[in-house]
Structure formats: structure tokens, C-alpha cells
């Protein structure tokens, strides 16, 4: 099919240039964000341990009062808390939806459930935030107590947002299973539920876990929808009704107030770098899961 000896013709060069541009873009993102994000540690001489583990946050404290402190732990923990809880809520729902669409009622799944989840995925995140703010926050305030702006509101909004991701990846991995697995189980007299639970879900496990990790990545990086409903309090939450803060909401809120190159601004870039590293980490995790397959 491919003609040999086409060599380096000009058109191939042109296409290669566009493909190369994608590489250049990715490399420059990593380089730029890293340079800015590492300035905190290289220029301002903040120890990475302080940024990652300390809860003291006074980025603008003058030297005579003991100098600035940039402990990012509450932000990191907040991000982890909302995304892990969101995934814990979304996984059972998304997975049962995927099983339904693939095994229980494929026609229904194709006609109704799949399009519905695609639509959910299409709703812009600002709209999720707006709905969270105008509907969910007052609801939480009236029925659960507290301010309404809370960890609870944050992860509920996020869980709806990551549902489609978990659903799609799980459904794809269930569809990819060889049909003889199912047939063998039925031939041995299993019921449908036994087949799903004992055969299909374990066989699709790595794909399902990849879906969950992808959902986690999406939740971790979401900015506006979360910022609008969590209350942005720099405190380690002790209950679901406590307001929290996250890395993304700190960046969104403080960027305009800080001056490029100041320590405070550099720390925000360090948070962005952390988000970048996390998203790379999630990709690597998914690759590892895929490679190790069912042996997890």
C-alpha cells in the first residue's frame, strides 16, 4: 500500500513539520511551567519540603515579622480530598451504567444512556459551577447545615463531571472482552449477575481502573466549577460540611493580585507545576495499569 522510496519529499516535510509542532508545543509547555514553578525553590530558596508539607501560609509577611511562609499542604490536601471523594461517588454509578449499557440492555444503552452521558460530558464546567452555586450550595446549607460552601458541594459537582469519563472507559473495556468468556460462563450455568461479577468485571479490571484514574485526573485539574462552590478556606477540613481550598482555586483567585516574579506569584506557578506533574503521573499510572493487565 505504501509506495517505497517516497523519501523526504516536500509534502512529507510539511506534514512532518506540523507533527513536529505538536512536539515543540508540549516540550515548551513543560519547560515554561517548570522554569516558573521551580523559581520558588531555586531563586527564593524555599525548601520543597516546606511547600509540600507545611500548613503555614503567609506569602507576603515582611522580613521583620519572620519572613514569608509558603506551606501548600492545605491546598494539596484539599485537591486530593475533593477528587478522591468525587471518584468514590462516581465510580459505582459510572460502572453500573457501563455494565448496564454493555451487558444488561445494550439497545437501551446505545439509544439512551450513551447519548445522555455524552451530553453530560459536553456541559461546560462554568455551567456546572453556576448550577452548584445557585442550586446545590443553598440546598446543602438548608438541609445539612454549615455555610453550604463545602467539601461536600465540591465533590458532588465534580462527581457528576467525571461520571462520563468513568462510564466511557469502563464500557469500552467491557466491550473489548472476548465473547467466549461470557459464553463459557453461561454454558457452565451461571446467571447473568454471576457472569458479570465473577467473570466480566475481573477480566475488565485494568480498563476500569484506568477509567477511574482518568476520572481522578480530570477532577484534580478542574478549576472553576470547584472554586465556585467550595468556599476557599485554607484549612484542613474536619468534616464534609467544612469549606476547603484547592490548588486550582488558589491559582485562579490569587493570580491577578500578585506581581510576576514575586515569591507569592512564583508559588502559584509551583502549584501549576505540581498539577502538571500530577497529570503526567496519571498518564504513567494508566500506562502501567494497561501493561500489567489483569495481574493487578
Amino acid at each position, binding site marked *: *500500500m*505504501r*509506495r517505497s522510496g517516497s523519501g523526504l*519529499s516536500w509534502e*512529507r516535510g510539511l*506534514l*512532518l513539520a*506540523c*507533527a*513536529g*509542532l*505538536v512536539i515543540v*508545543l*508540549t516540550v515548551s*509547555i513543560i519547560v*515554561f*511551567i517548570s522554569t516558573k514553578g521551580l523559581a520558588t525553590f531555586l531563586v527564593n530558596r524555599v525548601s520543597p519540603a516546606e511547600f509540600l508539607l507545611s500548613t503555614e501560609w503567609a506569602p507576603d509577611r515582611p522580613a521583620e515579622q519572620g519572613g514569608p511562609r509558603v506551606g501548600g499542604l492545605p491546598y494539596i490536601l484539599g485537591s486530593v480530598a475533593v477528587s478522591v471523594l468525587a471518584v468514590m461517588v462516581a465510580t459505582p*454509578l459510572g460502572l*453500573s*451504567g457501563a455494565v*448496564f*449499557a454493555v451487558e*444488561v*440492555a445494550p439497545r*437501551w444503552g446505545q439509544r*439512551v*444512556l450513551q*447519548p*445522555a*452521558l*455524552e*451530553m*453530560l460530558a*459536553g*456541559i*461546560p464546567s*462554568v*455551567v456546572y*459551577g*453556576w448550577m452548584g*452555586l445557585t442550586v446545590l450550595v443553598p440546598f446543602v446549607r438548608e438541609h445539612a447545615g454549615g455555610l453550604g460552601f463545602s467539601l461536600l458541594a465540591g465533590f458532588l459537582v465534580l462527581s457528576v463531571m467525571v461520571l462520563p469519563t468513568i462510564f466511557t472507559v469502563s464500557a469500552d473495556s467491557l466491550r473489548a472482552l472476548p465473547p467466549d468468556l461470557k459464553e463459557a460462563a453461561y454454558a457452565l450455568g451461571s*446467571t*447473568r*449477575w*454471576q457472569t458479570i*461479577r465473577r467473570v466480566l468485571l475481573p477480566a475488565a479490571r485494568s480498563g476500569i481502573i484506568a477509567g477511574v484514574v482518568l476520572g481522578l485526573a480530570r477532577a*484534580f*485539574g478542574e*478549576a*472553576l466549577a470547584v472554586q*465556585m462552590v467550595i468556599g476557599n478556606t485554607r484549612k484542613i477540613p474536619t468534616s464534609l460540611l467544612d469549606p476547603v481550598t484547592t490548588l*486550582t482555586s488558589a*491559582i*485562579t483567585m490569587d*493570580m491577578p493580585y500578585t506581581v510576576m516574579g514575586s515569591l507569592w506569584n512564583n508559588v502559584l*506557578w509551583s502549584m501549576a507545576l505540581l*498539577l502538571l506533574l500530577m*497529570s503526567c503521573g*496519571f*498518564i504513567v499510572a494508566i500506562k502501567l495499569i494497561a501493561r500489567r493487565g489483569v495481574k493487578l
Partner: protein
Amino acid sequence: MNARTADRVATALFWLGAILLVALLGGLLGYIVYHGGRHITWDFLTSPPETIRAGGGIGPQLFNSLYLLILSMAITVLIGLPAGIFLAEYARPGLVTEAVRFSIETLSSLPSIVVGLFGLLVFVVLTGWGYSLMAGALALTVINLPLIVRVSEEAIRSVPHDLREGSLALGASQWQTIWKVVMPCAFPGILTGVIIAAGRVFGEAAALLYTAGMSSPRLHFGLWNPAHPSSPLNPFRPAETLAVHIWKVNAEGLIPDLRRVGDGAAAVLVLVVLGFNLGARWLGRRIHRRLTAA
């Protein structure tokens, strides 16, 4: 509980879960469209926003969203389509191909706020454009590029082989074959991908806060010279989009009819994205029919 009862219970639960999911979407969409739909009038869609008084509209924001959509999709397709062709037709297994694939994966997993910050550094500060449509369009390009490359590659790969071989056998060059035979066949699939990407562009906000900016100059519709600073077409003016506007009216909270503007804008946003989504589905179905019935 014996196996059969367990099976029935499980089936019932699966149905319940599915109904819950559909109800969730129905409830969300119904609420947004019902609450916001009441406020959508011709006047709301065309008049400029107010800063402290009630009664503002979303005219410039809507225009900005559409203009940004066209700009960014043009740039994305210009880079993404050739890259997709490269991966599908010319790429040999090797370092370059691996690097491109790795880059696409990395790009597609980046949080949009990080892309926005990169845009702030490079497209806003380094280029000296300031907050501008162009900076916003380029940031959106970064977000959508992986999707377009992937979609183009898949669409081109799915073109039947005998078409290619027929063309090559008739003496056409590989380039002519791609251009005259493969691309027309792959076109509908690529278009579907572009429409889905367009929906994402229309609703994106986090990447635009610090690139396209949170303000819109007064636009003089009728001034169509793109070099003029208050021409709506000038790509180097700040441009607040509809999605960013929802965020901003909430953040400023100065207008008394905040709920009206927010609900209305959210409804417009959702309806447009829904339109894109349905359009892509309809297109996909038509292609499917054409390919299977041919």
C-alpha cells in the same frame, strides 16, 4: 438468597442506576433550560452587558465566543489535520512517531488552567499582545489539538484500502491519492470531530481567564476593518467570552439581576453546546448509513 433471586435483584439495581443517570441529565438540562430559557430574548442576545445597572445583555460576549471559536478551530485544523495525515499515512514506527504520540497524550491530559497559565506566559506576555482574542485562540488550540489529531488520524485510517490501491494503481502519486481520494472519504469523520471540539471551545473558561481576558471593549459593529482597535474583528483586542462572562458576573456581583444574566447565559451556552452535540450525532448517523447502504 439463591442465585436466581440475586440475579433479578442485580438486574433491577442496574436498571435503577441507569434510570438515575438519565434522570440526572434530564433534571440538569431541564432546570438550566427552564430557568434560563425564560430570559432569552432577542434583546438579551444582542445588547451589551451592564456594569452596575440591571437589564444588560450578552451580545458582545456571544460574538466573542463565536469569533474565538472560528479563529481557534481554523488554527487547530491547520496544524492538527496535517499532523493527523502524517501519523496515518507517512509515519514509520520510530522515535518521531513515538514522540508525537506521547505529546498528544500529555497535551490531552493537561488541566485547562495550566494551559491558560502557559498562554499567559507565552501568548500574552512574551508576544506582547496582552489579553487578546489571538492569545485565547492559541490557548484553545493547545487544548483541542490532541482531539483533532486523533480524530483526523482515525478517520483517514478507516478509509478502505482498495480505494487507495486503486488510485495508486492508476498512477497517482501518494500525495494526489491522499488529497483526491482519501481526504474526501475521511472528511465527514473529521467534520464530526471538529464539531465536538467546537462544543468544547464554546464552553471553555479556565484557559481563557488569563489569555482572552475578562473584559470586552465596546464593539462598533459595522467597523469591519480588522486592524481597527474597536473593530469586532480585531484579533488583538481583549475578548470576554460567554463562559468567562458567567464566571465574571458572579465574581463581581455588582449587577442586581445577576441571577437573570447567569441563568440566561448558562442556558444559551448549554443550548449551543447541545446543538453542536446533536449536529455531530446526526452527521455520524448519516455517514454510517451512507457507508453501510452503499
